[in-house]
């Protein structure tokens, strides 16, 4: 009801409109209450401190992994890890966001929030992979790119944009898996791929529900409502055809069984690569462009197009 009390303070609203709005709002609240829990549970699972992170998957999936460091411009960003892995008779380039588990490693990994040098390292590694025909797999798990003065000065926006461009340009097969938090542009920067898979209890969103609520509801405690209306769960994203496949998690969530979660991911990766590697490379790249070209919903001459 606090929302209802807030409504009349909006300027320039006529009474009739207001009644419609209040009734719509009530409907929304009703729907919200009903669905809230499941959506918010997923947000919490996606951020679960014991959830497997990129290096956990790498350890469980690949026998030989060589981590490669540095962007050759400025530094090495520990919030993004990447390197070469041997995988079923071929080499893979694996790149992913990395969070930490204890205070020290969280600080080192900057809570999984990359700076420009992280995205530039990723580009360097992807170009290396492209040169040798090595497929690229990315693992997405970040609250977002780091918002800081130095990060801005070194071109955070441009680093993300160029990471996207680099991914669009790759000739090798590319697969992204959203394994935890897919936070905004900082997540998307590594997810412009032929296939985008998503673990069941992951989320992927344009903005954190807390920040969205703070802006639109002027109240960050409305985050659960924001989470719901933003449509950030794997089911929502599959419906909107943003992702290609939802991967089921071990019972109770990936944090319950890291090895089982890694097996699921490995199977899905194998299937995706099989499909992509047998495609004509030109066609494969063309389909990547066509897929992202289709993204969005708009009306044209009054007709809604998907």
């Amino acid at each position, binding site marked *: 009801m606090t*929302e209802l009390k807030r*409504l009349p303070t*909006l300027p320039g609203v006529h009474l009739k409109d207001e009644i419609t*709005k209040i009734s*719509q709002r009530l409907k929304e609240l009703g729907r919200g209450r009903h669905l809230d829990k499941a959506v918010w549970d997923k947000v919490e699972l996606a951020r679960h401190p014991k959830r497997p992170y990129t290096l956990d998957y790498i350890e469980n999936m690949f026998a030989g992994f060589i981590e490669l460091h540095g962007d050759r411009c400025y530094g090495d960003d520990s919030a993004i890890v990447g390197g070469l892995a041997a995988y079923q008779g*071929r080499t893979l380039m694996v790149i992913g966001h990395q969070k930490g588990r204890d205070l020290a490693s969280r600080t080192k990994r900057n809570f999984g929030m990359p700076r420009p040098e992280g995205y530039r390292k990723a580009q360097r590694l992807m170009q290396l992979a492209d*040169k*040798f*025909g090595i497929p690229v797999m990315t693992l997405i798990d970040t609250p*977002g790119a*780091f*918002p*800081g*003065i130095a*990060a*801005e*000065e*070194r*071109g*955070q*926006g*441009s680093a*993300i*944009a160029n990471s*996207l*461009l680099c991914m*669009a*340009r790759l000739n090798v097969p590319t697969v992204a898996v959203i394994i935890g938090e897919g936070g*905004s*542009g900082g997540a998307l920067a590594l*997810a*412009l791929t032929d296939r985008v898979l998503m673990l069941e209890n992951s989320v992927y*969103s*344009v*903005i954190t529900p807390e*920040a*969205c609520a703070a*802006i*639109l*509801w002027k109240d960050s405690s409305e985050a659960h409502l924001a989470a719901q209306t*933003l*449509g*950030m769960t794997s089911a*929502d*994203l599959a419906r*909107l055809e*943003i992702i290609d496949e939802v991967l089921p998690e071990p019972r109770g969530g990936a944090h319950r069984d890291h090895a089982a979660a890694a097996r699921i991911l490995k199977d899905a990766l194998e299937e995706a690569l*099989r499909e992509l*590697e*047998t495609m004509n490379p030109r066609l494969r790249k063309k389909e*990547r*462009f066509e897929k*992202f*070209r289709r*993204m*969005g*919903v*708009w*009306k044209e001459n009054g007709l809604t197009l*998907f």
Partner: protein
Amino acid sequence: MAQKVSVDISRRGGNSLDGAQSCPGCKELLSPGDLSGNSMVCPHCGHHFRMTARQRIELLADPGSWSEIAGNLRSADPLEFFDLRPYPDRLEEAEYETGLSEAMLTGRARMNKMDVIMAVMDFGFMGGSMGSVVGERFWRAAAEAMDTRFPLVVVCASGGARMQEGILSLLQMAKTTCAVELMAEAPIPFVTVLTHPTTGGVMASFATLADVIVAEPGALMCFSGPRVIEQTIKEKLPEDFGLAESNMDHGQVDLIVPRTELKDRLVQILGLLEGGVACALQPLWEEKTRPAGRRGAFAQAFDRIKALANAPWRSSQR
């Protein structure tokens, strides 16, 4: 990244046309005529006021040369997004207040008789936020540029992603980037003008991917908005944070051009970009200098694809 919408535009002054306003730069009292007669630039201190998309087109396009592309696209409400107000309400209000159909107008135009494709954003339309229509219009403008081989000029002004379209708005960054890559392959000259403010998803996609990035004096340009950064680092930001001049110092833009010179300089840049000589080269690796018996990475990849195509699991699956 829509949290970066929180841009303080009040310090820049509004663009209300009724009555005089004081310049945020020099505190001089300016009449609407002082401004509109001078491209919305303060005649005393050179402060650049915000421009609407229509004013921008008037500034850059030769009179009568503008013809709109993709003007029939309108935003839908795929998420049935509802915060304190429904999304269609907000759209309707933005249309009413700006007289625009969306936050970006796209069209063909001539600049000093040079044919160009132009895309112009308007911060007044829901903070210039990028939703599906902005992404699709950008794509169509790029497609038109590739079909006609005219250069593309994009004037950016955006608070970031259109939150009301949720994840779909985020993916417009990927979509517009794909369009940029197609133009790069062509290649089509592509120049962006970053005006106050250009932030968030637009900053982290096409705005910073241009062949030449031009900024207007005093324009705020950043990925994360000042307020978000202040909240994160719990410090006050320096006065010049994210401004065009500071971005210039840090190597993030090619040049800063005052609005009064903008059109001529853009035409000059585009002309120079188109003035190359053809030097298409066959890839060197096709020449027969490779030692016999060593197959290149691409050939090996091809072998692997062939092997995979004949792999037993494929025949068993079919």
